[in-house]
């Protein structure tokens, strides 16, 4: 465990009084105006006091095994002209701005810039059209090598633009064992996603 993980552990200890983790699912769950039906339970992180480097500024963050392992990040209901994500503490980095006319490639580039603020390296793989949350959208796969501890992650993202707003879900988990094990559960949930249009 790197010192970083230690410090994260200690910081999380310190801030635990201000944060809660609650169970979501099974059953129907909503994140803003997006809903999903979950087969099993997930853990939802309530506080924005701690920035997760793999999903800075997400609307909501879920996990099954722990936030430094698998993370389901929701960037949803982001309007035209609003920033996607947030800058890491102590940096003043300007965040990409969502525009309703952005091409999927550009949304992925924006997402990449948000989740690589800590120097992690991101490589997009498949990028294909897909139905998502009741509309036309796209799906992408990626690899992320985390800078802090060199751990390799696989990721998958689903995205659509509805009511001129961005709805993006990104799920990442360690390449070794975890992603393969957990992603089917994620994809079955994604299939049930819906947005009030």
């Amino acid at each position: 465990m790197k010192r970083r993980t230690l410090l994260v552990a200690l910081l999380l200890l310190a801030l635990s009084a201000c944060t809660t983790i609650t169970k979501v699912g099974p059953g129907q769950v909503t994140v803003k105006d997006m809903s999903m039906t979950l087969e099993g339970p997930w853990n939802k992180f309530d506080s924005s006091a701690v920035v997760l480097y793999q999903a800075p500024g997400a609307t909501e963050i879920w996990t099954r095994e722990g936030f430094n392992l698998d993370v389901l990040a929701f960037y949803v209901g982001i309007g035209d002209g609003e920033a996607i994500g947030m800058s890491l503490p102590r940096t003043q980095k300007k965040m990409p701005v969502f525009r309703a006319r952005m091409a999927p490639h550009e949304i992925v580039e924006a997402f990449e810039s948000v989740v690589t603020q800590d120097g992690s390296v991101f490589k997009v793989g498949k990028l294909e059209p897909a139905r998502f949350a009741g509309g036309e959208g796209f799906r992408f796969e990626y690899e992320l090598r985390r800078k802090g501890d060199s751990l390799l992650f696989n990721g998958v993202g689903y995205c659509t633009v509805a009511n001129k707003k961005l709805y993006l879900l990104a799920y990442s988990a360690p390449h070794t064992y975890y992603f393969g094990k957990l992603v089917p559960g994620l994809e079955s949930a994604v299939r049930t996603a819906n947005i009030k249009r």
Partner: protein
Amino acid sequence: MQRRRFVLGCGCAALGGLPWAGALAQAEAPEWKMPARFARPDASSDEGSLWAFMDREEHRLKQSAFVIRDKALQDYVTGIVCKLAGEHCPDIRVYIVQTPLFNASMAPNGMMQVWSGLLLRMTSEAQLAAVLGHEIGHYLARHSIERLRDAKSKSAAGQFLGILLARAGGLGAISQLALLAGMLAYSRDQEREADRIGVELMARAGYAPLEASRVWEQLLEELKAGAKDRDEYWDESVLFKTHPPAAERQKVLADLAAAKGAQGRTGADEYRAALAQHRSDFLVDELKRHNFGETRVLLERMQKAFPDDGELQYCLGEAYRLRAQDKDLTEAIAAYRRAELLKGAPAEMYRSMGLVQRKLGDEGQAESAFAKYLELKPTAPDSALIRTYLKRTD
């Protein structure tokens, strides 16, 4: 904030060896003598502790996935180090790290780090030798142990912990070495001394000393252009707070070079050949920094040296496309068009062209560009999505 101690070239000389007479205060000083090889210090001494700590950092560095393990590149850089460091060569181990920023550093135990951002920015072997020579200068002059003792005696509260925790705070882009390097930031006098030794080593190894001054000239130009975009995990002000001001440095190095005589090898062709395999990857990393001021200056400098290089024009286009302010989109298209006439631009250029033309409202042009991309890469991982762009009518 401790981050400002992350310095360019924080070499750390360590233990043993005769401290050579630091008489090189002025350009007229007696000729500098290379010290004898250093012996490992006693484990219970403060130097020994620092050395052993760096051994463990090196052990961790070896496990990092961000070390570039290409033997050819490693051997090339090590070769330059050995030309400069002479008999100290066996004591130095070079690690090339994938980080798109300008930095090189050296620890008292002989571990040297060179970041890929530095390699991308050097335009000749002599320029790289200048930076490495500076680091070796710190090592040979044992600056780090001076600083360690100075820091301890001042008992600068929280200095060590602050650094360690700052790094642990998640900005893992800065390696532990740079972290510790920041902890042992050199004084300006030490930086000047390292510059002098560096130029001396360059000259003795047959490199053109004036290239050292050019390194700073180039960096300064970049940093000025990038001032507005700076927002990342590297605090640029470090360069100016702990080093003599860049302009002064440029002048001093130019004077030192003049004193040495401006003859010597530049090695631009050798350098380009050595970097060829990695340049595309380094350029991609550079663009992803989203610091367009610096990237643009860097690319324009590279283009001047290689005007027929299509990949460089493509990258310039990318820089404009990603910033997308004011007239950037038009500039991007212009760059892509230039790239089209040259060799070396990747098929992705047509995809980028299509994206920009779409934004500019040139639907017809966009479709041609996307079609061209698909023609060149029919099985690209995003081909299905590109086909939907072709169908779009709005």
